[in-house]
């Protein structure tokens, strides 16, 4: 069966990488704790320094458009309705009705039961549908339920699955358990035709307490086969921060050196202004490299960010400051 082979792949790749005959929790612990520690002060200083870059005129115009095309336009509320998701899809299809040159965001990110609605609304526009799964946002459900949640989303047509890791298991040092779970969800992302939905692994960095843990969780997620590593659910504060994203960008850069596999990064939650978004783009370019400046490899999980980018875009176009009356409320 393909699925077990795939899971076997992840395990055997991990065994090769770790240089062990059997993948045990001890082996994973040794490997993860052998990663160099993160210099907290240095990391935060570098993130702050990169945030002071001045991006103007044509570079700013490019960055705003790039940022828009990297957005996973998100609605993850208990009060979501099918109509709200449809209107959000409408916004993704035509972000700014006053300017047809505005790029579209990369994806719509919704709960699993909204996937079919979003899929239908977006049609063949090329905008992808991401579904959060595995008992998002806490992840506190049995593995059986989490896998069923994932399969549900994939069957409904989701192009991408955003899973949450079991932070409890991770923080108690049960790395093998987390590894197995990610690998199992990755397996559940397989479609009947053999293709696979892209898997984004949400580490919920706000609950991981230290940058060392963020680095370890990043490596563990990549080892288990995640296509993307994502900071947060957006339900926990702090959500995405520049230093955390810096650690993750270093991880994906080093991971490609190590294995040849490129993994994407998605900061999510708390990114609301164009200024913030531009800081992230500077960091992507400086830390990971321009290869990541692409919607396939870098995403913003955001909802209100799009409107702020549109306002900035209008300002560049008209030369006058714009206001909330000139963008749609989603």
């Amino acid at each position, binding site marked *: 069966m393909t699925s077990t082979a795939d899971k076997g792949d992840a395990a055997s790749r991990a065994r090769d990488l770790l240089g062990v005959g059997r993948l045990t929790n001890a082996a994973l612990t040794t490997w993860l704790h052998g990663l160099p520690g993160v210099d907290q002060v240095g990391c935060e200083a570098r993130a702050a320094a990169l945030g002071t870059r001045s991006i103007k005129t044509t570079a700013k115009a490019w960055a705003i458009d790039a940022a828009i095309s990297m957005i996973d336009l998100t609605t993850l509320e208990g009060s979501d309705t099918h109509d709200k998701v449809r209107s959000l899809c409408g916004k993704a299809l035509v972000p700014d009705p006053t300017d047809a040159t505005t790029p579209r965001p990369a994806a719509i990110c919704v709960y699993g039961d909204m996937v079919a609605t979003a899929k239908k609304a977006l049609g063949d526009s090329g905008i992808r549908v991401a579904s959060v799964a595995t008992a998002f946002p806490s992840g506190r459900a049995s593995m059986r339920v989490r896998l069923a949640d994932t399969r549900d989303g994939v069957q409904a047509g989701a192009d991408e699955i955003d899973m949450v890791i079991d932070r409890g298991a991770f923080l108690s040092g049960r790395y093998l358990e987390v590894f197995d779970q990610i690998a199992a969800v990755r397996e559940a992302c397989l479609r009947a035709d053999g293709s696979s939905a892209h898997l984004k692994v949400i580490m919920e960095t706000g609950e991981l307490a230290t940058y060392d843990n963020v680095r370890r969780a990043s490596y563990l997620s990549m080892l288990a086969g995640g296509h993307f590593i994502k900071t947060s659910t957006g339900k926990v504060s702090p959500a995405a921060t520049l230093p955390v994203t810096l650690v993750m960008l270093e991880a994906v850069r080093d991971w490609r050196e190590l294995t040849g596999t490129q993994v994407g990064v998605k900061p999510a939650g708390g990114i609301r202004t164009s200024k913030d978004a531009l800081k992230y783009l500077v960091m992507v370019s400086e830390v990971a490299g321009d290869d990541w400046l692409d919607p396939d490899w870098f995403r913003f999980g955001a909802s209100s960010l799009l409107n702020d980018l549109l306002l900035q875009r209008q300002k560049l176009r008209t030369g006058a400051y714009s206001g*909330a009356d000139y963008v749609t409320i989603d």
Partner: protein
Amino acid sequence: MSPTATRGPTPGTSASQANSRVDVRKTYKLYIGGAFPRSESGRSYAVHGAGGRGTPRFLANAAQGSRKDARDAVVAARGAVTGWAGATAYNRGQVLYRVAEVMEGRADQFAGEVAAAEGLTTARARVVVSAAIDRWVWYAGWTDKVAQVLGAVNPVAGPFFDISAPEPTGVVAVLAPQASSLLGLVSVVAPAIATGNTVVVVASELRPLPAVALAEALATSDVPGGVVNILTGVTAEMAPWLASHRDVNAIDLAGAANATGVSWGDLEAAGAENLKRVLRPAGTGTVAVEPDWTLTPDLSRIRAFLETKTVWHPKGR
């Protein structure tokens, strides 16, 4: 010897002590969103006293606001609209009256600022300050009476109550008068905020210090942060950005009179882009003049920044 020594010793201290006192030199800041930030540009400019003989006396440094400060001020003003417009008219009246109270307590400071800025004698400055305080009280009284005077129950040919009620227009950019640095300023700010608008004020370019003092009074009264935002600096630099700003609902061009490099016609044209309400400066033709602010006002400045909401309510049983 030095002219700055006038603010030096209290009576009784010896001359040697007096000379050793280090001057507290003032560099004032902007007032945005209830806070006192420096200009994002980092600039400031020297403010000199008016009148007198010989070289103008240096008073203090004021922050030289930039277009980005104006932008930030509009964001703060926009954020304050909901709360301020949503407050009861009675409450707004109390808050405006409270400003008068705070100013009354600091009347000496205001008189000093006005005297230095406008070149008035202390006695004349006191009259101006009293007039400015009275102006707050005058508009405070109007807050919960405007709807009765400017609203209406309209006769309509059908079984409906038809009610027109005045509502604040939103964010108002105000170019404060250039000459009357306190009374003129209060005379343009108070009517705009009395009805629930929030304002971004560009203070008098050459006489900004009374506006700074007013900001300090506002910050310690009950006016919520963001309702009044005061920018000091070059009027011609900030005014066009406020006039073209699409998130500004109205602009008061009173301060275009005698402002260097400001053409109020251009500002009105820029404001037309988003259908701003524009209150033209006094004067005829293209010539803007500053009116006599000591005259008792009428409702025109209140009315200029109001929208009318009309509701049809069925009369059936």
